[in-house]
């Protein structure tokens, strides 16, 4: 069984994984304080009215029965309806996912644009001032909380220059691009430092290997050496790390979207949690789980492609 078999097997393994995540979230919501029915019906409703709605929604049924119903619906592709808006949860997610996709995509691009050149510069000038500055800067970026970085960018860049809006997502594509830059930069500032450290270490290790010395002795230029030999071999570990980071990025999007008032799934999850909108919470969480699992799978495949020493066995 080759690569196709590997991918098929991994895909099959994700099903029980996702069901397990759904179960954990389901149970956590059951024990979370706060009555979702009161949030649905209203603060002034009587106990009788609350009980009637609770019965109607099946919330009095045994947890196992409720979970079974939910999974049966999931398998039909039905994420249920929002308690608050009565809209299908899938529609709600669909309305918001584009914003988060923009944020993640631009965030990853900016992360790579920051990581690769700084890692290379830091590695080839190891222990020199440039290296120290880059590593110190990375430490600062890593320790600053995302919401603070976001607010600082707004105060120091958006407000004085007017180049970028202070919040929201805009209505047209050019407006989307302008709106997403600072939030994506905030994501990148928090993510790049770890990748810089990892890639720097990998590059230094590869630079010290024999085939690189051989290539140098054969007259290969430094630029070509880095591009063709070093980066590809050093990248494998960082690709895995980037995949792990994407999972954290997704949850970082929750903070970023709240800070910049971006109407993405992160903001949607926060609002759903506040309103105890159980179907929406479950829907968003399932989305997050699917994305993270998919990214890990893609990372494994990418690593195997990049590094021929990694074999895919059945």
């Amino acid at each position, binding site marked *: 069984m080759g690569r196709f078999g590997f991918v098929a097997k991994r895909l099959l393994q994700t099903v029980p994984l996702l069901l397990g995540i759904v179960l954990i979230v389901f149970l956590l919501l059951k024990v979370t304080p706060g009555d979702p029915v009161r949030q649905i019906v209203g603060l002034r*409703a009587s106990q009788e009215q609350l009980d009637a709605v609770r019965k109607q929604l099946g919330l009095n049924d045994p947890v196992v029965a409720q979970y079974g119903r939910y999974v049966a619906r999931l398998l039909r592709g039905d994420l249920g309806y929002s308690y608050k808006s009565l809209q299908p949860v899938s529609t709600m997610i669909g309305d918001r996912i584009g914003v988060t996709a923009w944020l993640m995509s631009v965030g990853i691009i900016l992360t790579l644009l920051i990581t690769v050149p700084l890692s290379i510069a830091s590695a080839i000038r190891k222990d020199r001032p440039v290296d120290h500055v880059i590593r110190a800067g990375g430490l600062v970026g890593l320790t600053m909380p995302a919401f603070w970085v976001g607010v600082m960018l*707004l105060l120091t860049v958006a407000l004085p220059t007017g180049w970028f809006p202070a919040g*929201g997502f805009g209505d047209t594509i050019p407006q989307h691009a302008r709106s997403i830059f600072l939030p994506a930069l905030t994501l990148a500032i928090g993510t790049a430092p770890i990748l810089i450290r990892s890639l720097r270490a990998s590059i230094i290790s590869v630079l010290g290997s024999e085939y690189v010395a051989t290539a140098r002795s054969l007259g290969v230029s430094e630029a070509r050496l880095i591009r063709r030999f070093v980066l590809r071999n050093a990248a494998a570990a960082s690709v895995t790390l980037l995949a792990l980071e994407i999972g954290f990025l997704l949850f970082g999007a929750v903070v970023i979207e709240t800070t910049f*008032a971006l109407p993405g799934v992160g903001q949607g999850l926060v609002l759903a949690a506040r309103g105890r909108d159980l179907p929406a919470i479950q829907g968003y969480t399932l989305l997050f789980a699917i994305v993270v699992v998919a990214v890990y799978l893609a990372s494994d495949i990418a690593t195997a492609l990049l590094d021929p020493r990694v074999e895919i066995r059945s």
Partner: protein
Amino acid sequence: MRQKTVAIVLLAALALVAAAYGGGKGGATTTGATAKGTSGAVSSQRRGGTLRVVRTESFDGWVLDSAAAYASYQTDAAVIEGLLRPGADGKSVTPGLAESWAPNPKAHTWTFKLRKNARFSDRSPVTSKDVIFSLGIWKAGPNFGGSYVNIKSATAPDKRTVVFKLGSAYDNTFLALMASSVSGVMPANFGSKGKVAYYQHPIGAGAFKVDTWTVGGRIVLVRNPYFYDPKRPYVDKVVIDVVADDSERKILFDSGQADIVEYVSAATAAQYDRSKLDVLLPSQIEHLSLNVSHPPFNDVRVRRAVANAIDYQSIIKGPFSGFGAPAKGILAPNLAGWAPPTQPYYSTNLKRAKALLAGSSAPHGAAVELIYDSGVASDVLVAQVLKDNLGKLGFNVKLTGLETGAFVGRAFSVNSDMTLWSYGAISPDISDPLGWFLGTKWLFTGLPTDTLRKQFGSYRTAATRKGRIVVITKIQNQAITDAHAIALTQFQVIHGVNTHVSGFASAPWGLSFYDTVSLNR
């Protein structure tokens, strides 16, 4: 407004004073409120533009009965207009879809005349049939249905006339009820859309119609071309965003990306340019509710001791940054029907507090729990002030800050020793707070509400203004005597209004109508 202040919409309508009772064409007029923003008569207000509003509260949706947040009342009223509107002075009613209204001599029936040109946003005319259909929806609501119990029937002698028959005459709450945003008029049979489809994309006869909206997210309203006043709304579009972070809201306001910031918290108001703040008359009450169902607060002496130990001035100056004043009673001020107590309200007197406690069932204090909404910045600070104040009496106060949903659950369960929260009215009458007290087990204290219920009924049916004052005064005095719910301060709703905005006029509790606003830029 407080993020988590829950409006008390027990819109028991109250015929507002003589002006409201007079009915007639136009009824009471908007008085006492000045439009915020640049000066200029209404006729010179510029048309066009997009009004950008940011707020901290999420919108509950278009089911009028479920509205619990000011954000919801505000938005609902812009789309689903009612027969009447609350006046910006907070005490009167003004014409909405109805151009006139009048009672019969004993105020047993009220006849409303609909405007000739009142139309829904789908161009269909607003008729009496729509009002009668809507009344059925209002009465069936689990939250506010009880408010309409005195409306026994409604008939339609013709397409533009609705006659409401009341169960008892002189219902002082009726007109305020009709002016509440819960009493929005919907098309009969939901315009043949079906209930679920209607609430996802409602049709109303308000100044705006819904373009797009998401729960807790952006709401975009566009001009209703069939609105009954052809001069309004002035703006073409209203874009409302929920921005939870105080700093981000201010940044949007300062950058000009937000024209109005609704309900600026007192904690952050000092950061704004004062000339851009619309600081309204006090209409909100921050209260400390003591659970009377178990020790130590089942002893009135202990409760009175607590009331005398609180440093009210510190609460006003600190958590409320001076945007508050000593409370005069447990009832929210600046509402029609409000009357002060005849005895002075509590003030800080530690000596008296200790003396009261010494003679009580808990002479050395007790270990008690105080719950509050940790999402409300001022409540977090007030809780700490109270812990310190009560510590001087020997109380060991455990502060339990809860996330909003969890806090609401515990508050309504009345299972904590003390609950810290706030409330404000949503309709122009004192019956609104009274209804909230009834629905919350006397403001989360567990005090039996039988007496209050009777008093509410008396207020509702009092034939004279003097009679109403007597009832309210009694309620205020009793609350001081019982000391179960202590008003810590009466504070103001604050809106941030940029200088290019004209015509913004808000009721004291914060409700305004976007169709009076224009943008001068």
